[in-house]
């Protein structure tokens, strides 16, 4: 940037500040259009095949958004008149929940039996308060044996019961509808909680998951942002050793975030919790720009320069490296647009805008505001680099050992990468501080499986679901799934037909099987349909033209790989035992999230490779050296690989947010390399130093700056680990690890590598 322009800026600080405030205000105002998303589907692109499969399923049957209320009496006694009445009343009241379509519980369960040759269809428990102990015992035995209820709406051990509300949101304004429903249910539950202090109530389900997203966002904003501001202030105060520089930088940091969120928000946007990590990242990255500029500025003042002169000089030295690192960082974040999951496009684009805004503010606004703030005498701290001298001596002395040792370490860590398992679990997205998590875990422990998969089994034509052969195959399929160890409950229409057949034959157990005649099955079904009351029809199990039925599988909390493995076994069973038209794959939110990381990784690879080419090309141009451009690939790529190797040792579960860490960190990691290599290159080309001397020079000139920016970046990303939303926490931790490892590689591996690969030419010179 021309000195004239900086000169103008420092002479007219008020004008620059005024213009900046206008720009920040106008763009930042758009942030008010941002709303919090309450829809898990936001994580999926429209053409995601697993989303489409699930939407198709929901079009065919009733929607399956739900809230499951678990009722767990402390003494484990569900079958008492009081608890049964509670369930009965609560079920009845649940019909009034906004957008509820259906309420299923043990009490309103439509129990069928035969009486004087008639089919009686009636709620299992009605007016429970009036039942005598024998009647309750009789009905308890029925409930604990019924395949629809046991392990689903009543725990196998009979110590907990559930009420399942099917919710059908109009979806016009989901961000409002979800809290409306959840608020209503919570108020209702609180009322029962108060009246029954010895009973615990827990809530889970798809709608509760949806509600947990904005709730996690709010928790993020109220915990992360204050901590981040504190961290920034502390970091700045210690790196800049003064209040005024801290204040100026803090302004740049906040303005960058405001511009980014504001510009993103202008068109109106609903964001998922992971996007809320964007301001934290922008603040972190903006600090680094300012530190570089202010350090040079203070060094100038320390040398006795006038304020304006010192700033003009600082901008002259720093403009190119800060621009270069901002651009590469922006490119890194833009790779997030290759993600299969749209919220990461938002994250990448916001940070990209923020990084560029931070650059502009750092070179235009920061110089201006610094002119208005008192400059201070600066201690020698800014030019002290004895520690770096020691470090560079150490690296040079032990270069062979370091080269071998680091190579060994890198290879070992890279070899560990494949040990990571891909795993996404909407329950574990939230930590235990979010009530949804603890409630869901309690339900998994006491009542039923909290993950589910649906299989819509086609019968090959209209009305064909009454075909005995079809029903028998469905029944065998349900039995097969039921026998799988991770499965807690299976609901299948074949169970209904078996029970009806028994009822129609005077409740003879021998007839508890699929009717053996198609007309009979069809007419039983008709009779049953005509006997069901309001809201409890069979459309949740049988589609409109009766050409398919739905098998619903509820599973324990298992990993994505286990879900996919179970689905493979189910599909294989169908291939082996069912006609072709019955073939299908599992569809559900669980299924969608189980596949999302694998899909995302394959879509991200293209983006990261493209960015790597682009960035390497930029380095190659900047350094004017093909050799160094190629060598730079090592420190740019290796840190993320090492990070995932470490991750395999300590965690081993890679979810959606980790699959984009490579994109997030690539552009940041590159900065260290650029700084180090450019100084090395300059020493060799301009100062005609040997490779060894050039390494020393690089350490001396950028060692401190790299260490302090790495410290700032790691601290900033570590703030994210406080998030109750695992995508943010994991992304923050992994990014911090990767950025930290990048410094290790740049200090302990890159120099020995340079001394080894860049040897001959230097010695000749």
């Amino acid at each position, binding site marked *: 940037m021309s000195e004239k322009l900086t000169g103008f800026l420092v002479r007219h600080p008020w004008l620059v500040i005024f213009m900046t405030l206008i720009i920040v205000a106008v763009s930042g105002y758009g942030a008010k259009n941002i709303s919090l998303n309450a829809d898990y589907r936001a994580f999926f692109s429209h053409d995601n095949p697993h989303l489409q499969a699930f939407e198709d399923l929901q079009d065919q049957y009733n929607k399956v958004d739900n809230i499951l209320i678990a009722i767990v009496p402390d003494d484990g006694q569900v079958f008492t008149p009081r608890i049964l009445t509670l369930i009965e009343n609560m079920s009845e009241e649940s019909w009034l929940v906004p957008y509820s379509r259906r309420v299923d519980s043990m009490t309103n369960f439509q129990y069928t039996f035969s009486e004087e040759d008639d089919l009686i269809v009636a709620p299992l428990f009605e007016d429970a308060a009036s039942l005598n102990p024998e009647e309750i015992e009789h009905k308890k035995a029925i409930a604990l044996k019924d395949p629809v209820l046991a392990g689903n709406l009543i725990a196998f051990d009979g110590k907990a019961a559930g009420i399942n509300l099917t919710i059908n949101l109009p979806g016009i304004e989901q961000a409002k509808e979800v809290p409306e429903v959840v608020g209503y249910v919570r108020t209702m539950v609180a009322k029962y909680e108060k009246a029954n202090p010895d009973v615990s109530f827990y809530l889970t389900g798809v709608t509760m998951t949806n509600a947990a997203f904005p709730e996690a966002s709010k928790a993020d904003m109220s915990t992360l942002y204050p901590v981040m501001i504190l961290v920034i202030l502390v970091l700045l105060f210690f790196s800049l050793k003064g209040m005024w520089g801290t204040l100026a930088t803090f302004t740049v940091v906040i303005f960058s975030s405001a511009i980014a969120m504001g510009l993103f928000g202008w068109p109106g946007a609903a964001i998922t919790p992971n996007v809320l990590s964007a301001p934290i990242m922008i603040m972190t990255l903006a600090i680094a720009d300012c530190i570089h500029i202010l350090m040079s500025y203070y060094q100038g003042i320390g040398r006795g320069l006038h304020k304006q002169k010192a700033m003009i000089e600082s901008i002259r030295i720093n403009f190119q490296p800060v621009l270069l690192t901002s651009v590469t960082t922006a490119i890194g974040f833009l790779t997030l647009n290759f993600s299969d999951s749209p919220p990461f496009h938002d994250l990448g684009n916001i940070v990209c805008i923020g990084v560029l805004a931070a650059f502009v503010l750092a070179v235009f606004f920061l110089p201006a505001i610094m002119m208005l703030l008192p400059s201070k005498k600066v201690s020698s701290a800014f030019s002290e680099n004895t520690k770096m001298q020691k470090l560079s001596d150490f690296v040079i002395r032990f270069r062979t050992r370091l080269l071998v040792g680091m190579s060994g370490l890198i290879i070992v860590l890279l070899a560990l990468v494949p040990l990571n398992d891909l795993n996404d679990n909407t329950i574990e997205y939230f930590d235990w501080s979010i009530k949804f998590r603890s409630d869901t875990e309690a339900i998994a422990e006491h009542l039923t499986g909290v993950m589910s998969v649906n299989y819509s089994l086609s019968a090959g034509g209209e009305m064909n679901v009454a075909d005995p052969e079809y029903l028998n195959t469905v029944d065998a399929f349900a039995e097969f799934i039921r026998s799988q160890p991770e499965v807690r409950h299976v609901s299948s229409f074949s169970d209904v037909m078996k029970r009806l057949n028994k009822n*129609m034959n005077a409740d003879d157990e021998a007839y508890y099987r699929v009717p053996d005649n198609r007309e009979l099955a069809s*007419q039983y079904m008709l009779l049953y349909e*005509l006997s069901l009351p*309001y*809201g409890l029809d069979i459309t949740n199990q049988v589609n409109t033209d009766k050409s398919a039925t739905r098998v619903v599988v509820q599973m324990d909390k298992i990993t994505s790989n286990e879900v996919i493995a179970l689905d493979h076994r189910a599909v294989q069973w169908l291939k082996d035992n069912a006609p072709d038209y019955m073939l299908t794959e599992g569809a559900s939110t669980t299924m969608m999230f189980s596949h999302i990381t694998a899909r995302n990784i394959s879509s991200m690879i293209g983006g990261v490779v493209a960015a790597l080419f682009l960035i390497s090309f930029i380095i190659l141009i900047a350094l004017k050296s093909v050799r160094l451009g190629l060598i730079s690939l090592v420190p740019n790529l290796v840190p993320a690989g090492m990070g995932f190797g470490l991750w395999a040792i300590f965690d081993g579960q890679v979810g959606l947010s980790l699959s984009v860490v490579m994109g997030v960190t690539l552009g940041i990691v590159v900065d260290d390399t650029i700084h180090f290599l450019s100084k090395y290159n300059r020493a060799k080309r301009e100062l005609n130093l040997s490779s060894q001397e050039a390494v020393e020079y690089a350490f001396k000139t950028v060692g401190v700056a790299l260490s302090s920016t790495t410290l700032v970046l790691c601290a900033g990303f570590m703030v994210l680990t406080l998030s109750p939303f695992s995508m943010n926490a994991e992304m923050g931790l992994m990014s911090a690890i990767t950025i930290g490892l990048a410094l290790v590689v740049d200090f302990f591996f890159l120099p020995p590598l340079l001394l080894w690969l860049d040897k001959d030419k230097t010695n000749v010179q």
Partner: protein
Amino acid sequence: MKKILTSALLVAMAVSSWAQTPEEKGLEIAIEGDKRSEGYGDSKVKLKMVLIDKKGRQSSRDMRVKGLEGKGGEGDKSLMIFDTPKDQKGVAMLTFTHKVKSDDQWLFLPALKRVKKISSRNKSGPFVGSEFAFEDISSQEVEKYTYKYLRDETVNGMDCFVVENIPTDKYSGYTKQVVWIDKAEYRAVKIEYYDRKKSLLKTLVSQDYKQYLGKYWRPSLMVMTNHQTGKSTRLVYEDYAFNVGLKEKAFTKNSLKRAR
């Protein structure tokens, strides 16, 4: 009962027609509508039911319905015979409508060769998987609701009364219905159904009304749209016939097996 109500109403109107409450006016409209369909004796009609799901996929079934007007204090009787789908051909359903207590229903299953009584509270559930509940298509007795006149409104160029009906049966699936009745012929041209949450569940539009025997108006097409699921059902009526000489004994449990 009807006569008492009618005369009571006439007296009330005579005394203070200017001071009629909305409830009185609502009841008056209902009674007038009922009166205009009185005396049809018996009827026969062919019915095609088309179920349409959210994505527009259709499936249909054919039925015939025979009706017998109730005499004295009794409600109407109806006999519904299923012609398709093939698996359910010959299934017949007999309904005795009652003015106050729940209707009685029996179903004959040819595959089982037996008649089964249907639970009396079923009438709020979907009728054979359609968007119609049985209570929507069964005979509308005046006593089944309480009424409240809301306003006048024009629907498709027809001047209509808008009346709110509140079901008296606790097993009804609705908290209320809002009915548009045309002033000229007292035909229900549109009905909105509100669910237990008091939110709009379905809308029924009845169209192509035709007059039979110079007196009785019947729609040729009824379309029920469920706003919450996006599904809809069309009922297409064909070949209406009145006074065809159906006998009481064709509407008994025993006659079900022979229903053709």
